[in-house]
């Protein structure tokens, strides 16, 4: 057992302790409004994994959170906090919707690569100004990206309501996609074998999300570029001396962060909403922060954490039906608590986690040595 594996295990345990602590406090909150937290959490699990369509929704949300988590993590590797994921996703949604409107004859499989490229480009473009301002003008990324979220939201309201909305339509949404432009839903594919499961928006974008996660892993840990990027974040003075262009790495990381988050738009617009809607990514950017922190900014951890938060998001929706006084905002509180513990008490939890892994590991090695 190497020190590296031991530290990774300690990190995993710290993440699990973090989630447990957040769930505990969330439970106290549910208890405070007079409901049974165990029953509430059981209802969340049941809603998230109890039915095939529940799983479909859970994994659909997880797809979004993989993108927003990877995006946040990439910028976090250069010690920048891109909290503008929502704005970047809205702007990316614009090009996805426009491509669908421009190319109505094109089937989904031809449109998908264009939409992915367009969403990445527009997501990166919306992050480019804050990236420039960080590198050249030393402007705090948290403030500029949150301002860009508000601006993106207002821009999309204007474009949807005044430009893209079909004549005579009252709903604040763009025109609907052609049936052939919709991404195939995985439950439909399963049903074509004779099953009769309820539909859910889970679609082929989950495979794109997994492929992108692997690509991010390769790029960050198996290329010179990734090494330089992580070096710029880990110790900028040492990296600068070694000839790493800190400013350029920072700008690239922030723009790529926007590109990754932008891919959520393809999943939501071509896979679920089938039109450009207002606020289609509402809250997803912030969930990405929790996902990235729990996943320790590594692709594998992010995929796992995205499924966890997908389950909370989907299961949280079913809480409302069962417990009138519990609203799904409890999930937002859980997200916030996870972020709080990851940011604030990581140093408190980590020694216990390390001690525990150390104790477990020494026992297991003692056993093997004894045998």
């Amino acid at each position, binding site marked *: 057992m190497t020190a590296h594996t031991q530290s990774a295990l300690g990190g995993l345990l710290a993440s699990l302790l973090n989630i447990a602590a957040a769930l505990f406090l969330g439970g106290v909150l549910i208890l405070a409004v007079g409901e049974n937290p165990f029953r509430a959490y059981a209802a969340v699990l049941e809603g998230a994994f109890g039915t095939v369509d529940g799983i479909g929704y859970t994994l659909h949300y997880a797809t979004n959170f993989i993108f927003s988590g990877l995006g946040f993590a990439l910028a976090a590797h250069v010690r920048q906090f891109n*909290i503008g994921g929502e704005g970047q996703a809205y702007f990316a949604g614009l090009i996805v919707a426009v491509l669908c409107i421009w190319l109505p004859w094109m089937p989904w499989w031809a449109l998908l690569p264009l939409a992915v490229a367009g969403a990445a480009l527009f997501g990166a473009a919306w992050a480019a100004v804050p990236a420039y301002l960080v590198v050249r003008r030393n402007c705090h990324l*948290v403030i500029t990206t949150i301002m860009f979220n508000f601006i993106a939201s207002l821009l999309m309201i*204007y474009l949807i309501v005044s430009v893209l909305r079909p004549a005579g339509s009252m709903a604040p949404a763009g025109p609907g996609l052609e049936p052939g432009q919709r991404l195939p839903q995985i439950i439909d594919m399963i049903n074509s074998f004779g099953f009769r499961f309820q539909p859910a928006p889970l679609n082929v974008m989950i495979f794109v999300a997994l492929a992108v996660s692997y690509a991010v892993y390769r790029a960050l840990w198996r290329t010179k570029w990734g090494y330089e990027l992580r070096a710029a974040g880990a110790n900028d003075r040492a990296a600068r001396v070694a000839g790493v262009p800190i400013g350029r790495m920072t700008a690239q990381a922030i723009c790529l962060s926007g590109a990754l988050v932008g891919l959520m738009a393809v999943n939501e617009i071509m896979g679920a909403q089938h039109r450009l809607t207002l606020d289609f990514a509402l809250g997803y950017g912030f969930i990405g922060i929790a996902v990235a922190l729990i996943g320790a900014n590594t692709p594998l951890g992010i995929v796992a954490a995205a499924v966890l938060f997908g389950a909370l998001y989907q299961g949280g929706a079913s809480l409302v039906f069962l417990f009138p006084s519990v609203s799904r905002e409890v*999930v937002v509180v859980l997200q916030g608590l996870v972020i709080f513990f990851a940011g604030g008490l990581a140093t408190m939890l980590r020694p216990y986690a390390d001690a525990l892994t150390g104790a477990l590991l020494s026992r297991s090695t003692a056993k093997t040595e004894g045998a």
Partner: protein
Amino acid sequence: MDFADIPLLLASAIRLSIPLIFAAIAGLYAERSGIIDIGLEGKMLLGAFAAGAVASVAGNPYVGLLGAMAVGVMVSLVQGVASVRFRGNQLVLGLAINIIATGLTVFVGIALYARGGQTPPLPDGARFSAIAPQFSWLEGVPALQSALAGLAGGHTILTLGAFVAVAVTYLVLYHSSFGLRMYACGDKPEALDSAGVSVYRMRYQAMVINGLLCGAAGAYLAIVQGGAFYRDMTAGQGYLALAALIFGNWKPVRVLLVCQLFAATDALQSRLQGLSIAEVDVPVQAIQAMPYVLAILLLAITAGKSEAPLAGGKPYTKGQR
């Protein structure tokens, strides 16, 4: 818009600036002591909820204000302990507070009132009464009289409170040993430590003041502006306050002026709606985006040469000299 509108516009700008001033000055204490505070938005929101809920129960705005301040201090102290004692990442902690606040206010609001996250509308008795001075001694100069009456009318005791807070902060920061120590605490905590002053205690004290002021900012939103708590009613004002703090270079009077600038663009919104430039109608959303765009422009102009507290964001270890 004619000349007579200007005092009304200014009065409305001043009213809109009050929560920004409270929040920005709250941030000034935290950051001057060395704790970066991204959590202003969340603490304002929690304060607003507490104010709305407590004022509606008590039927008294002052009790509501106290409730908001109590909640603000509690949250600030939790943030302070996590930043100071547990050496947490201050950016992440602030973000976490903002996210917890958006969820918690709506969760508790729905559980208590079942109004979609809103608190009950406050009756007049539970709101601060607005002053309406007539300046009758100026009857001879009606233009001046109506201008002054327009400018001074509609304010509450909290308007005065915000300006007093700025004045007191100015005096404290530059003319008291407490303020000078706080200054040192944010720039060179090891020097303060060498002088035998506890860096930790300094930061906790700053966070208590921060919480009181965040509570006041929230109370203004719920009791004076909204007449109730509405979900996400801060709408980015905590972040705007942070931008004002940076553009104001962590100096109270400059921060006050920047808050006025933000509030003035906000106040102009209602006047500019329906505006058309060269026959083209300006979209209302473009006007609504003005404060956010202005914040980015101001930051881009100055942040490069800002004088941020040097030790901001860095946890301090006692005896590390």
